[in-house]
């Protein structure tokens, strides 16, 4: 990085808090949007097959609409908001979300053995989705406000850990292990980039590892079952092992080039469970083979790379940490979902970003992407990079 050049960029903007419209459009990270659109369109192809083509076309069109709304939200977040707005309202947003989580626990509606939704008028609000964004912003704000030279010790981390653990407790209680793990991953990555001392990080990892057996006892039977099943799916091939076995068969049988569009027997003949939501990657891998699977992984990797570049160019800690959180929200879901489909991780009900059918996760992700673009837009070092 050339410091003088960056200083020049800073001066040339004159510290303006807001940009003109032409400037906003010029500074918008179009390559990020392009990668997103590519991935989303790639997803449409897979989803069309996963819902069974003509038979359930309405699902496909709903996803097209949901994705369009998502893009709209992303553009809104990125282009309309002023530079400081997210930092200003982050705590309020966080506490609002936490309250909603508490309300959900008391009066939320139950589905599939979990209490996750709040009936708001005509639609169901999954309050944990709000918390994902809220936690990112709140943590970023905290470390921004409490900036400190040198690395962060236990004393500095008490409040952030509490901020992470509170919503996690609610969400584990729902129970929704996938989202809880996601929050932990996102939170931890923010803490790491914010400057946690290596000693503390190391201790933390040890403590977490040691408390595994304790955590095990706190799990629901079905959660334990999923973890046992992961390691030996053949123990219960028709019960909890069924998902993993069928998913592995689907992926494996795809081979190098796949069975072709709409031609995957595992996908089309209902052997794959949840094939348009959590297990959509199996459909892709079966019908498009190794080439298709790797293509999607490369698209994701490019997106993540682009996002990390934005982080690197952020003006301040808040921007940097927001981008890190948003990127991790996205990446952890990719890794956990694909790992689950490939039988490497337990089945934890995490959708595949941008591809899986479903509105709420799409909206949350696009808000995160909007935040990414927003940070990029206001970056004073913008000129240096793509």
């Amino acid at each position: 990085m050339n410091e003088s050049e960056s200083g020049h960029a800073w001066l040339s903007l004159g510290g303006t808090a807001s940009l003109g419209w032409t400037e906003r459009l010029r500074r918008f990270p179009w390559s990020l949007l392009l990668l997103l659109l590519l991935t989303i369109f790639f997803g449409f192809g897979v989803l069309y097959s996963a819902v069974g083509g003509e038979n359930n076309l309405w699902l496909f069109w709903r996803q097209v609409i949901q994705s369009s709304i998502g893009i709209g939200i992303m553009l809104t977040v990125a282009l309309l908001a002023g530079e400081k707005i997210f930092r200003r309202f982050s705590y309020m947003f966080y506490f609002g979300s936490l309250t909603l989580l508490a309300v959900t626990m008391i009066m939320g509606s139950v589905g599939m053995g979990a209490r996750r939704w709040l009936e708001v008028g005509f639609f169901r609000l999954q309050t944990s989705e709000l918390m994902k964004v809220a936690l990112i912003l709140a943590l970023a704000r905290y470390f921004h406000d409490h900036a400190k030279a040198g690395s962060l010790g236990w004393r500095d981390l008490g409040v952030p850990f509490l901020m992470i653990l509170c919503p996690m407790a609610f969400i584990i209680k729902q129970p929704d292990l996938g989202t809880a793990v996601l929050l932990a991953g996102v939170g931890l990555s923010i803490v790491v980039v914010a400057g946690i001392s290596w000693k503390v990080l190391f201790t933390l990892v040890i403590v977490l590892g040691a408390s595994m057996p304790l955590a095990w006892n706190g799990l629901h039977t079905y959660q334990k079952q999923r973890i046992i099943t992961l390691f030996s799916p053949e123990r219960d091939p028709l019960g909890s092992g069924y998902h993993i076995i069928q998913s592995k068969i689907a992926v494996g049988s795809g081979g190098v080039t796949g069975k072709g569009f709409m031609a995957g027997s595992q996908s089309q003949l209902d052997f794959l469970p949840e094939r348009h939501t959590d297990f959509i990657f199996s459909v892709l891998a079966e019908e498009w083979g190794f080439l298709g699977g790797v293509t999607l992984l490369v698209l994701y990797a490019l997106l993540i790379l682009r996002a990390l570049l934005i982080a690197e160019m952020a003006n301040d800690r808040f921007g940097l940490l927001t981008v890190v959180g948003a990127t991790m929200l996205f990446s952890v879901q990719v890794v956990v979902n694909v790992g689950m489909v490939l039988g490497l991780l337990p089945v934890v009900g995490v959708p595949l970003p941008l591809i899986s059918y479903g509105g709420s996760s799409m909206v949350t992700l696009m808000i995160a992407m909007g935040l990414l673009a927003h940070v990029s837009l206001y970056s004073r070092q913008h000129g240096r990079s793509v």
Partner: protein
Amino acid sequence: MLDDDREQFRGDARRRLLLVGGCLGAGFLVLGGRLFHLQVMRGGEYRTLAEDNRISLKPIFAPRGRIFDRENRALVENSPDFEVVVVPELAGSLRMLFKRLSRHIDLSEEEIKHLLQQARRQRSFLPLRVKSHLSWEEVSSIEVRIHEFPGLDLQSQSVRYYPYDALACHILGYLGEPSDGDRKRLSRITFRSGDLVGKSGVEQHFEELLRGREGVLEMEVNAVGRHVRELHRNPPESGEDLRLSIDFDLQKEAQEAMGEETGSVVAMDPNTGEILAMVSTPSYNPNQFIRGFTHAQWQALSTDPDRPLINKAHQGQYPPGSTFKIVVALAGLATGKLDPKEQVHCGGFLLKEEQRFYCWRRHGHGSVNLIQALTQSCDVFFYKLAERLGIDAIERQAHKMGLGGVTGVDLDSERAGLIPSRAWKRKMFKASWYPGETLITGIGQGYVLTTPLQLASMIATVANGGTVYRPSLLKLEPGQVPDVMVRNHFSAHHLELLRQGLEAVVHDPTGTAAKARPEGGIRVAGKTGTSQVARHRREKSGQIIKSTNEKLQDHALFVCYAPLDRPKIAVSVIVEHGGHGGSAAAPVAKRVMDRYFTKYGSGA
């Protein structure tokens, strides 16, 4: 200062970002590697698993071969058996449906309850069998109303049908569930659940011919087993039809002639060994095995002391009685130990080693030669002849005429009968052969056992001049050479003498079987026999005290062939506990022969 802080922060943040990015990169590499492992390295393996998932093989049953008599009258057919099934997911309320259905078919409250339970256990798109073996009334009643019952379907499957019920049941046999023994014996066949297999008769013997080869339907199925489409069909090969040597008219006549009696009739073409009729009584209805028995019915059938499930023609073993004298006579002539003109005195008994061997006629026959001895069935004559021949010569002759071993008929589980010998006795009783035993063997009593089929084959051998054919239940193709078991070269002169005696049995006023004389002046050669069931008590005078218990009465036997000069039919009859061969068995043979000659004539 501020810049320094920012600078330091930036440097640190970049390092930390690198760590996060590195972690993610590692994660992606693991995912890519796993994808490579599953898809590229183990792809073939998983492809097989996916195919196994996808394809369901459904057997298509091959129609079993039908069975005809020698004139192509169907004795065994496959008839459609209708069952009514319902696909619950199309039917709406099953309870209502069954209620309405019970107006048209016999469906009890109990059965409905059971069906509803079953419906809860199986997937709702799979057809549920409501009732099988529908009557024609039920079928037509449902057929016209089928549109009133959504989801209901009439399905037909092919079941074995024996149009004449019990007639020829022992030849045809019946079907049943394969036993372990069947599975072992027919190891080349893969049995499926619900598969039936021949349990007796030709159904059993020709199982592999009749069965054909099942076809395969390859269906694509989805995860819950619903059929999506047909992928490939390998059509079944139907079983071969059998054309039996049986003449149905003759079979029917023989069956009717036996009436309520227990026993067996075998009629055979003496020139080929083809069996024209084979009756065993009492009989059973093979259709019952398809429809199923109640426990009581099965008990009654399987424990009946008259053993209706056994084919007595090849599984019933009886002492041949005087019919065996044919063998002894031929042995005497062949060995030269009997001069045809020789006169033997019969005084009613023969004294041997201080033991009296009685003739059936207590006053004796006076002086008799061979022909007279055969005509009147004089026991003393044959005691003496047997004594002179010795057991070894008798045994040899019996084997030459197909006795004492299986005939090789096209039926399973044939019994061999028994021709006793010194070696046999030593082995069985650890005792030597007594001369007295030779004497009673000479009149077909004692240890000798034969099946009615063996006796038919024996008299056929006499009829054709010495060839023992393998009795065949399949009609010979034109030009097909019959199987020969033993080919003897009996002297024409000896045979002529024997025939004269056997003819007199039927046609001489002193003969024992006048009741076998056919209509229309056809000449018959025959021999009666009476085989002892229990040793009768005798008074000092020799008068037999006949038991009044029917089960202790003697078995009546008769063997014959006709016409005398150009034999076309050989018959053996045994009537269990029938008393005398001449009175109980000969009339049965006469009816069979009469039927034969009215149908075919007696000419060449």
